[in-house]
């Protein structure tokens, strides 16, 4: 397919799209008044729920800190609070990246550059987020068994055997997936940034 073929196909798309264009003055007027862009709201809601859950979790551990009777469990409690707060901060930062603060009047190449930088940053945060989530999962199991069962699950040798073996398998698959999925897109993004350098 040569560029001329692409042009002909695009012309066909142009004709097809003409049939779909049905904006009337009332609709345009509404669109200028209300920002009823749903996807952004959906993402914002899910992120906000995540942040609230993290805060609720941190508050719960803090309020029940007295039930943690050994130094180890107290250490786990502190780490869990820090982890939950860190995850919230990461979510807030990710959420802020979605806001359209940048000037939409900027030249396209400038926006592509900002987009590429944001994308790289976002991927880094995602990696940190998932790794921390795994750690939080292990810590949650320890804390929940103490809070609700009254047992110190860490006394059981099976817990450590299972948590470490499952953890290792998880991290093995996760890192392979991350390497496979992200490396290609990150490489492309980095190449794009190089291309955009003056």
């Amino acid at each position: 397919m040569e560029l001329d073929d692409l042009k002909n196909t695009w012309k066909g798309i142009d004709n097809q799209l003409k049939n779909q264009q049905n904006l009337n003055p009332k609709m345009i007027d509404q669109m200028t008044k209300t920002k009823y862009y749903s996807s952004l709201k959906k993402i914002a809601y899910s992120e906000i729920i995540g942040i609230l859950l993290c805060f609720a979790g941190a508050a719960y551990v803090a309020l029940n800190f007295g039930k943690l009777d050994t130094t180890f469990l107290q250490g786990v409690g502190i780490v869990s609070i820090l982890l939950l707060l860190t995850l919230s901060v990461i979510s807030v930062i990710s959420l802020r990246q979605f806001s359209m603060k940048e000037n939409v009047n900027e030249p396209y190449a400038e926006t592509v550059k900002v987009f590429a930088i944001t994308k790289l940053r976002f991927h880094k945060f995602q990696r940190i987020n998932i790794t921390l989530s795994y750690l939080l999962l292990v810590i949650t199991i320890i804390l929940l068994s103490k809070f609700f069962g009254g047992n110190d699950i860490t006394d059981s040798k099976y817990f450590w055997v299972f948590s470490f073996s499952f953890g290792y398998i998880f991290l093995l698959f996760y890192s392979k997936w991350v390497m496979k999925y992200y490396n290609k897109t990150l490489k492309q993004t980095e190449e794009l940034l190089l291309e955009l350098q003056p």
Partner: protein
Amino acid sequence: MDKKETFIAAIKDNEGLIYKVASFYTNTIEDRKDLVQEIIYQLWKSFDSFNQKSGLSTWMYRVAMNVAIYHLKISKRNFLTVPMDGQFSNLHETDNGGFEEKWKALRQQLDKLNLLDRGIILLYLENKSYEEIAQITGISESNVGTKMFRIKEKLKKQINKQL
């Protein structure tokens, strides 16, 4: 004519431009609808900053394409891999004549390009001159020429790989 009426008239005159940019950067009808709305909203918000130095359509392309990039970020979808099925599912009443197949083939080629190249090729497909492409993208006219040559080479390589 007040500001709002001028704006509505401008949108009506350039409706095709908005739909085409939205279609170029999205893979589903829902996404496209969202993007059309978002483009119009952002055009209105920055309507005051349109300084008449560049043509109206040049300014609209710039805003629409920039909004499309933000939409990619928001939609959290990887535009390189998302399937394109259903993109034109509501066009059956017209005689497609293998149109969907052609569209898919076109998208397969374009999706492999980076965002900058995609923007340049969109403007090329829209019959924009190198000067206009340079105005919209913010890269020099000579750079547009160089990039067009490279994009052509990239596309040729991609097609040869497929064969």
